[in-house]
């Protein structure tokens, strides 16, 4: 039976060659993302800035947004947003936090209920007061920082410090780009978004660790290989696994994105971007070359950036890696 081979067996792609391009591009994209965050801002949900979220379903046909807008506008509740949410008669009403503490939020909900009357079914009502929203924001930020720190410490134990640092830089860069994506697309930034970010962090590190593991093994085995070649070999060796895994996770996420419903759409879209697009790119083009810049293997034959062709090099690059001495099994 011919099995699907997405990645041929003996790829010898020179990934390291691109590091002179990939680093500047990444740096630029990160700066763009940071600028987006500060100037375009994130679409903070009520979890973090307080307020009221009401999802209604009009009983009689498609919703008349303009009419609803004027009805709610007349209640003098300050800033509010109305948008269609999925089906034609599904409307999402978002009212900003009312001054006057937690009790005032409740009053606002009463007013809206009274104003909309019997024309709508209430699918969902969420009210987050000022005390809870500040807490959630604090917890969310602390959570991200804590996760980064915990993982950094763990990697430090398992690998050398350059690996830990390299992984962190690559993955924080992942998070920065994802936040930029979220700013650009104005997806709702609430607690599920923090969940998405943390999962992206965990999963993308997952990927980096697999490559690092192989690099570490190669460092031990092939003492005379220069760093760029060694890194290339490691990535090529793990390429098949990476592609297959990324495909399976993408398939899962795709199913969630297409069929999981409006309620978790912002979550799955963010995950898709973070895990599939960015995670893959950084593990290969950032996390690995960064090890060279951090000085891993500096004492190797051929030392730092562009080694001259040492006597070993041609054989290593053009032939499959030297294998343990065993008779080849007949095919």
């Amino acid at each position, binding site marked *: 039976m011919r099995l699907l081979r997405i990645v041929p067996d003996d790829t010898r792609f020179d990934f390291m060659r691109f590091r002179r391009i990939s680093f500047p591009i990444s740096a630029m994209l990160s700066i763009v993302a940071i600028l987006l965050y500060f100037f375009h801002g994130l679409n903070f949900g009520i979890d973090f800035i307080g307020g009221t979220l009401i999802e209604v379903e009009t009983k009689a046909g498609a919703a008349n947004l303009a009419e609803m807008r004027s009805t709610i506008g007349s209640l003098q509740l300050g800033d509010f947003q109305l948008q269609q949410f999925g089906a034609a008669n599904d409307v999402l009403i978002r009212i900003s936090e009312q001054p006057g503490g937690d009790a005032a939020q409740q009053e606002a909900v009463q007013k809206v209920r009274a104003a909309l009357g019997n024309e709508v079914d209430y699918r969902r009502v969420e009210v987050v007061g000022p005390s809870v929203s500040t807490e959630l924001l604090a917890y969310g930020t602390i959570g991200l920082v804590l996760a980064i720190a*915990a993982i950094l410490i763990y990697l430090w134990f398992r690998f050398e410090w350059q690996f830990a640092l390299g992984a962190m830089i690559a993955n924080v860069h992942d998070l920065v780009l994802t936040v930029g994506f979220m700013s650009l697309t104005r997806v709702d930034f609430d607690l599920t978004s923090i969940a998405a970010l943390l999962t992206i962090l965990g999963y993308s590190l997952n990927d980096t660790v697999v490559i690092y593991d192989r690099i570490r093994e190669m460092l031990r085995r092939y003492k005379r290989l220069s760093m760029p070649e060694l890194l290339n070999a490691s990535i090529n060796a793990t390429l098949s696994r990476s592609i297959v895994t990324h495909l399976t996770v993408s398939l899962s996420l795709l199913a969630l994105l297409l069929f999981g419903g409006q309620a978790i759409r912002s*979550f799955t879209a963010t995950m898709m971007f973070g895990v599939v697009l960015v995670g893959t790119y950084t593990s290969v083009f950032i996390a690995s070359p960064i090890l060279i810049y951090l000085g891993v293997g500096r004492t190797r034959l051929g030392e730092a950036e562009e080694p001259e062709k040492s006597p070993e090099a041609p054989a290593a690059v053009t032939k499959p890696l030297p294998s343990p001495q065993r008779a080849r099994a007949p095919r």
Partner: protein
Amino acid sequence: MLFFTRWKAAGILLTALVVCLFAVPNFFPESTVRTWPSWAQRHIVLGLDLQGGSHLLLEVDANAVRKERLQGIADEVLRVLRQARVPFTGRAIHGNSVEVRITRDSDIETALGKLRELSQPLSGILGSSGQRSINITESGGLITLTPSDAAVTERIRQAVDQSIQIVERRVNELGLVEPTIQREGLDRILVQVPGLQDPSRLKEILGKTAKLDFRMVDQSTSPEQALASHVPPDSEILDGEKGQKYLIEKRVLVSGADLIDAQPGFDQRNGEPIVSFRFNSIGARKFAEATQQNVGKPFAIVLDNKVISAPVIREPILGGSGEISGSFTVEQANDLAILLRAGALPAPLTIVEERTVGPGLGQDSINAGEHAAYVGAALVVFFMLVTYGLFGLFANIAVAINVAMIFGVLSMLNATLTLPGIAGIVLTVGIAVDSNVLIYERIREEVRAGRSAINAIDAGFSRALATILDSNITTFIAAAVLFYIGTGPVRGFAVTLGIGILTSLFTAFTLTRLIVAYWVRLWRPRTVPI
């Protein structure tokens, strides 16, 4: 790597089977499951976003607890000093303390001695913590009493415990099904009522403190005159139902704490809704004394610092029962009776967070979740078969058992499944496959490098397992942090992700190996069909 003793294999299969069996109760209707023995009844609880219902987070007003404590201390100071016949002036609450000035210097020591008795030692975890409940200082005849922080925290904690009991009673009186009421943090209470669509009545009932007091009306001046000049020190101005002002003594004759029963009813004479109440023996005695001493004078029924009615005492009431009439609707009388029966909250509760999901959205979410899960699983299964053939089949079996085990563990923990939780399971399927992929790709490499079939498989497993452990741990750390900082649906996601990682580690280390080992033993292959 491929060698399993019979015991080990049996052990692994048994563990997997037992865990999967725990998932079984979820497939039977509630009524059937109830007839099973209690250890078999554990099942997954659907989160509110899947079954619809209300989630209310209430906060106990800590400041009110503090103020009441200070008022209590002030009252005690009055009682103690009067008993000791120590003259004093300027008894007042300033900021966080009660201050009192002893008129005669010679009395200071006596006063301090008596007042120190009010302060009690606080116990820490290992016995006396050395702290006292009230810190008392004196300078130049002015004694300051400040409740210590530890004492205040303890009071708040007690207030929350009490509030939980009272909230439980009120919620039960409303006849709501299976509510969850629990403490959250230092000063918050979480109330979750599945199936509740419109929490307005519940919010109203929980929002009222329902502190009922019976006090005398102060007839020394009229309320308007008191407002204009000054309010007598032992009285205060309170509003009535329609905004009119009353001048009421601060001293409480009888309080609602002594009520045994309260029932809604109708006034005999004019048919209006009223609430009739009954005191316990202590309350009845206090009530009898108060009414005997004050025949012909008006007394006020004060609910949450509002005067509901102020009838004149026509005759002493010795039986310990009476009626409260104000301008109630039938529902208001009903609600008031509920509040009085359940008891007064020690401090006001504010609603700081509310999330209500209707049944329509709940069902939609379940459908969407199921749909996505089936499609996702189908895609991954197909892909694995196409890429790894027979071994892909082994991986699929392992992942299927993995998912069953996730449900089993969730059942064992009576965990809550939310929509993000379902997303977590779908994601776990994608990640769990990774472990198998790592193994299989390694096997392929070993085959290319020239190892024989069995050696390649063996080497594949041993080399890959360390990597699998490392990579999954990082995702697990992220899930753990998320569990710690998340609430509600997000926590559900962290739970399923975390459990999914643990079970996928188990299946990768054991089940896949077991299946491959038995296949090798049975087929004795010379090549690896990968």
